[in-house]
């Protein structure tokens, strides 16, 4: 604590302020200009010409040099592995769906996958390839082009990092360090070289931060053209990043926090007229809230417009939406429900599936046959509607006739599962997951059964017109259990592995008439005695479909929980990431195969994490010194120190901490956006630590850092470029025993 002794405030710092970027190194004295204001050609010796050129143009040459390197590293040997690597299997397939225009469902928003489709289109790919994991690409799929398309996004990360560091006012040394780290991180490099969404996600995260720093630097000139430009670009970038993956919401949160602080500062500025303050608010609301939402929705609008045929994702959407897809013959369904009809029943809650049963039984509770909600079409979704057994016997003869009796409101019915002939049943047994409600099972058969097999049909309303009958797709129904009085409900609670992760169906004791999870509608409907349906026109609202799909995505995302019964070798825990304790084998590990190992450049990851800790100590240290009235910084420097620190530290926290709270399964590549903030922090902290050193020391310190990054990259480069020799030859590179680079 001796250093806390009072010291006179020094003013030498101001000089350092002027050596930040290369600009100031060219002396621009008035004598360098002629009368017309033109610059004299500097008088140099011929051998210094190159140096002069360098000094004049280094603010372009340096980034250009890095950009070229970046493109070279990203494109080098890109078609080396001619197999479907890792999640190319998913995203390639989604791209194919766009080319085939078949509706599919996925947990990620559509922008990134639409670009996969676009890449495929440009590559002349017709969408017929299945993208099976580990399969070889057929000759007619130009996978190299598709990979180049995505590698381009990855390559632009490097110049973006360069200019962001410039905007953050780093010294030239630090700018180069940050750029070099983004360029030479093996994880960034590796993930950018395949048909994956991550390069796009990272690209848009980088642009968002870049535009934000640009905008920040316009803060003294509000409402100017540049100010508006960068604000709007920030908003657009937010829209894009969230349309690729929801992880983009974290960088959005960073922009949000920045904006709130900015507005709070302005709120305290008593000299600012209130109308101007209001204008600040409106500008931000329009550019940072409305604009991104518009872009996000536009992506979905295009998504719906492209995917106009029936496909594997139909069942996630409402019946009416499905009716609008080509290839679904819903128009042929008989319209009105009658006794003896066969049908499928769709839950109308957001993300609701089809009522389903299968021969597997509940492992606890009644141990009877399971009833679930399922999002895929199969014959186990089909049910018959029948009368109560008592009535059935009386009317047995009538049943054989061709007379049709339609089902009405308040009828007491029995629902019979088509393939197992068991009755939909509920009883005084708690549901397996939602313990407060009753279990729903399938029980008995045509003869065997009891009063608990009976349900009362309650018609809520009809979306098209009022009719006493129950119409397919448009009538909203509820099923009340006759003896228990509870309502059939499916509300996105997921069953464990024994229920195949399908949605739990329960009988809700509380009658909540506005709960859409208790609403059901008929989807498919078969009845030979009835005429095929007419040409009723079914329409859906875009907003409704948009919201429906997003809720379904959210639900499925939450359902991606780690499976305790199954060990996922690829998954990892968030606390393993900052110290790079894991890597991922992203393809088969045969000795002869081309192999890639997703692993960061250890020196970059470790120094990034160390710098975050160092910054916290630096910050507390300076805070304590300020409390004792030692001012090591001028006010402007202190504000800048806080600004960069906040951007990097809070940005890192926002991109990292949420993964601890999330229940879903997490992978190493979820850390990549956070890594960027730690890289910037590393350069910044090194800058701070060397700020009082002389130029030579700085050269040495940064020179060593560059060298370390480059050498470690060179040592590890094969895992990112791919290698076809046995992994055992890389034994020396297995620095941590927790890596599974070598068996």
């Amino acid at each position: 604590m001796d250093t806390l002794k009072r010291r006179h405030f020094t003013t030498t710092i101001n000089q350092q302020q002027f050596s930040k970027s290369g600009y100031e190194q060219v002396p621009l004295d008035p004598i360098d200009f002629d009368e017309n204001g033109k610059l004299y050609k500097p008088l140099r010796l011929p051998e210094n010409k190159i140096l002069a050129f360098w000094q004049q143009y280094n603010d372009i040459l340096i980034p250009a040099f890095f950009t070229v390197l970046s493109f070279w590293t990203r494109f080098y040997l890109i078609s080396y592995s001619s197999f479907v690597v890792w999640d190319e299997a998913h995203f390639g397939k989604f791209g194919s769906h766009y080319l085939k225009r078949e509706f599919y469902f996925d947990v990620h928003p559509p922008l990134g996958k639409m670009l996969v489709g676009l890449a495929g289109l440009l590559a002349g790919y017709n969408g017929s390839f299945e993208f099976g994991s580990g399969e070889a690409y057929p000759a007619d799929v130009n996978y190299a082009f598709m990979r180049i398309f995505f590698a381009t996004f990855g390559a632009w990360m490097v110049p973006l990092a360069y200019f962001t560091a410039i905007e953050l006012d780093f010294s030239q040394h630090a700018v180069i360090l940050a750029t070099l780290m983004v360029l030479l991180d093996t994880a960034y490099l590796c993930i950018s070289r395949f048909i994956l969404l991550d390069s796009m996600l990272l690209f848009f995260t980088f642009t968002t931060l870049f535009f934000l720093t640009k905008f920040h630097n316009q803060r003294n000139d509000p409402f100017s053209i540049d100010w508006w430009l960068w604000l709007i670009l920030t908003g657009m970038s937010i829209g894009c990043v969230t349309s690729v993956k929801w992880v983009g919401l974290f960088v959005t949160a960073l922009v949000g926090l920045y904006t709130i602080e900015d507005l709070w500062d302005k709120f305290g500025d008593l000299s600012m007229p209130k109308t101007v303050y209001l204008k600040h608010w409106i500008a931000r609301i329009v550019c940072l809230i409305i604009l991104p939402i518009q872009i996000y929705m536009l992506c979905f609008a295009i998504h719906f417009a492209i995917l106009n045929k029936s496909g594997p994702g139909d069942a996630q959407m409402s019946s009416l939406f499905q009716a609008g897809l080509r290839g679904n013959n819903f128009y042929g369904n008989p319209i009105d429900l009658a006794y003896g009809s066969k049908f499928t029943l769709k839950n109308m809650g957001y993300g609701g599936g089809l009522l389903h049963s299968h021969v597997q039984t509940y492992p606890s509770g009644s141990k009877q046959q399971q009833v679930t909600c399922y999002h895929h079409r199969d014959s186990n979704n089909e049910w018959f509607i029948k009368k109560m057994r008592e009535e059935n016997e009386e009317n047995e003869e009538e049943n054989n006739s061709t007379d049709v009796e339609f089902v009405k409101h308040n009828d007491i019915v029995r629902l019979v599962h088509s393939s197992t002939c068991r009755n939909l049943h509920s009883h005084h047994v708690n549901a397996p997951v939602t313990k407060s409600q009753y279990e729903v099972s399938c029980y008995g058969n045509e003869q065997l059964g009891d009063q608990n097999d009976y349900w009362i049909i309650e018609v809520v309303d009809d979306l098209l017109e009022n009719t006493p009958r129950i119409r397919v797709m448009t009538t909203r129904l509820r099923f009340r259990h006759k003896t228990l009085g509870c309502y059939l409900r499916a509300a996105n609670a997921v069953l464990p592995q024994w229920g195949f992760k399908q949605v739990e169906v329960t009988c809700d004791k509380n009658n909540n008439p506005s709960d859409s999870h208790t609403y059901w509608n008929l989807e498919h409907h078969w009845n030979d005695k009835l005429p095929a349906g007419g040409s009723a026109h079914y329409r859906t609202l875009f907003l409704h479909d948009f919201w429906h799909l997003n809720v379904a995505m959210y639900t499925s995302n939450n359902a991606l929980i780690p499976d305790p019964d199954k060990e996922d070798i690829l998954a990892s825990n968030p606390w393993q990431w900052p110290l790079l304790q894991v890597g991922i084998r992203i393809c088969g590990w045969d000795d002869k195969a081309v192999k890639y190992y997703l692993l960061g450049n250890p020196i970059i990851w470790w120094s990034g994490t160390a710098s975050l800790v160092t910054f916290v100590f630096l910050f507390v240290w300076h805070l304590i010194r300020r409390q004792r009235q030692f001012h090591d910084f001028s006010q402007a420097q202190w504000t800048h120190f806080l600004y960069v620190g906040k951007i990097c530290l809070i940005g890192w926290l926002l991109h990292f901490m949420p993964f601890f709270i999330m229940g879903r399964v997490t992978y190493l590549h979820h850390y990549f956006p956070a890594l960027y903030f730690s890289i910037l922090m590393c350069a910044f902290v090194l800058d701070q630590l060397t700020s009082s050193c002389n130029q030579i020391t700085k050269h040495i310190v940064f020179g060593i850092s560059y060298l370390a990054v480059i050498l470690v990259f060179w040592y590890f480069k094969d895992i990112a470029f791919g290698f076809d020799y046995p992994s055992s030859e890389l034994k020396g590179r297995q620095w941590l025993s927790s890596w599974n680079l070598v068996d």
Partner: protein
Amino acid sequence: MTDHKVRQRHGIQVMEPPDSVQNAPILDEKKTIGHTKKYTKKRIVSNSALAILTLLSFITRFWKIDHPHQVVYYLKRTYYFDVHPPLAKLMLAGIGWFLGYDGHFEFDNIGDDYITNDVPYIGLRSLPAALGALLVPLTYMIMIESGYPVITAILAAGLVLFDNALICQTRLILLDSMLVFFMLCTFYCYIRFYKYRLREFSNEWWFWMIASGVALGLTLSVKLVGLFTVLTIGIAVIVDLWNLLDIKRGLTMDHFKKHFYARAIGLIIVPIFVYLFWFYLHFAILNTSGPGDSFMSPAFQETLQGNVMSLESLEIRFNDTITLKHKSTSVFLHSHPQRYPLRYNDGRISSQGQQVTGYKFEDANNYWLIKPAKIFMDPSRPEDDFVKHGDYILLEHINTETHLLTHDVASPLMPTNQEFTTMPKDDDSRYNETVFQVLIDDGDSDTKWKTKSSYIRLIHFDTKVALWTHDKLLPEWAFKQQEINGNKNNVEKSNIWIADQIVGKNEPPKRHLPFFAKFFELQRLMLSHNSGLTKPHPYSSTPVNWPFLVRGISFWTNNNDREQIYLLGNPFTWWISVGAMAVLVGVLSADLISRRRAIHPISEPVRNRLLNSGLFFFMAWFIHYAPFYLMGRSLFLHHYLPALICSYMVAAVVFNFMFVDSVNYPISVTGPRKAPRIVAKAVVRDITVITCTILLAISACVFYYFSPLTYGTPGIEPEGIRSRMWLDSWDLHFQPKRHDA
């Protein structure tokens, strides 16, 4: 409300001296002495209020404490007591020991009767109840020490007094009353300490700081939730230190360091030592008493031991020789060459087989060899595999080379139970009758049978009876040893046996673990056990429901008289405390926003009190509440009780802000340097008293209305249940049947 605020501001303008320090009235000790008469009168009012509140509190907590005379709780005892540090268990054990209770009872099932099992449950319950009753005066004293007028303190204490959930939870043999009690002690001591800040390093200053540290340690030693209290005090200390560090305070760095180290000792080192001390005591008691020793053996001891035992236990393999000890009577399974007499005194006839008895002492005749029952064995398992739950075994008596057997012959003393005997080991003719299945309590097919720590039942393969013994002794012909027989009720608790040792293997088995090794092992076990409590429970709830009292917990029911105990707070007081916290946040945010625009709506002393005292209570509430959102384990309403008390204090602070003009200021003990200070005085008006009375009257009525659920008596008719179901989500028992249209 706006009306009051205007008046309040007005009141301050009248009351408050001009801001400039020179003109401010100066605190004068002599002047204070001049007011002695008024001062004493005030003290009498305050003390009698305290006395009345305390009396009421004891009455509400102790009323019908003997009802019901059954186990009331809903979680298995082992879970409940294993996951927490030992202090509360030691306290209960101490009471039990004091009452001469030998700890034979298991507390296993809700509804097990205390009277028939001869448990001094009233004595055991009175400890938590007494501490629970003391919460009321403690709350009162905290408010008084924080500088609030008597009426505000009465309100805070009254809210605690009439809270059904606090009464319900603290009347039972549970840990929460101790936790909350020590938590409030910590707050009280820390506030007293803080008030001595102007007399730094004085004796009182040291005393109250060390006292806060001790109380903090005690809180932590009851439940790990005490860590939230540590965090609360920690933040308060950091803020305090930060202000001391400010150069404007004029402290030298050395002086500051003295402050820093003093707090490090008082509030970090002292609590750690207190915490360690209880563990030390815990281990010391465990070491001086073996199983069955009756020195300190309330039921808890066994679970306390469970953890340490598991360190010393060994896994049993086939072809090990073991001794088997009966859990509740502590005899070993024993056999000797003597045979049962052909004819008993009552005329019944025996098989005349070799005697199998229960023997209290170590003896080579207690040795049994475990052999796999080959025909039931998975052939792929190795010869010396571990014995697991569900395995079929034969027990060979080593000395006589015979197999243990039971058959459908009445036992010597109980015609209803089967006789145990043995067969020569090379005689396969009655093989099936020599096969037993090992069932481990709470085991599944992967659970290994371990010495000392596994509770097992031996079920006969052929007849499904369980190996059993009781404290009846056989006559002379069996040397007055205990009778062993086969119990047809094979799920009874008294069928439990424990493998005491593996002969030859664990001859001196006792590893002497150093204190810290045991300590850290137990910490690890507690944490993993705690986070392992993820099994969904019908009455578990999520934190978001707690402040709004969305759901309670059913503790106990009695179908005959329609009686039930249902943990439910006083809805009125819960809801006004949530409302009060919203008001506090609103007021502070409004203040923050207006100050940003250079408007200062609240006078400095009032604002100071709101920030220092109100915000402290609010922070205490937040820290005792918010972390539950991050926990993965199953959570229950009673986890909210520590936070609830804090929210009542916030409610009183908000009441004070709304209905009392100004505040008593300053309240800290004056220091040696008598710097002139601004003085303000709280003014209690009629409206204040009336509001407080109305609030407390409503609280009392609502409390009374719901009290049958709290005390478990009298029973309520279905209509009464329905009218008490203010929220549909309160799943009370004995609801009227639904009549749906």
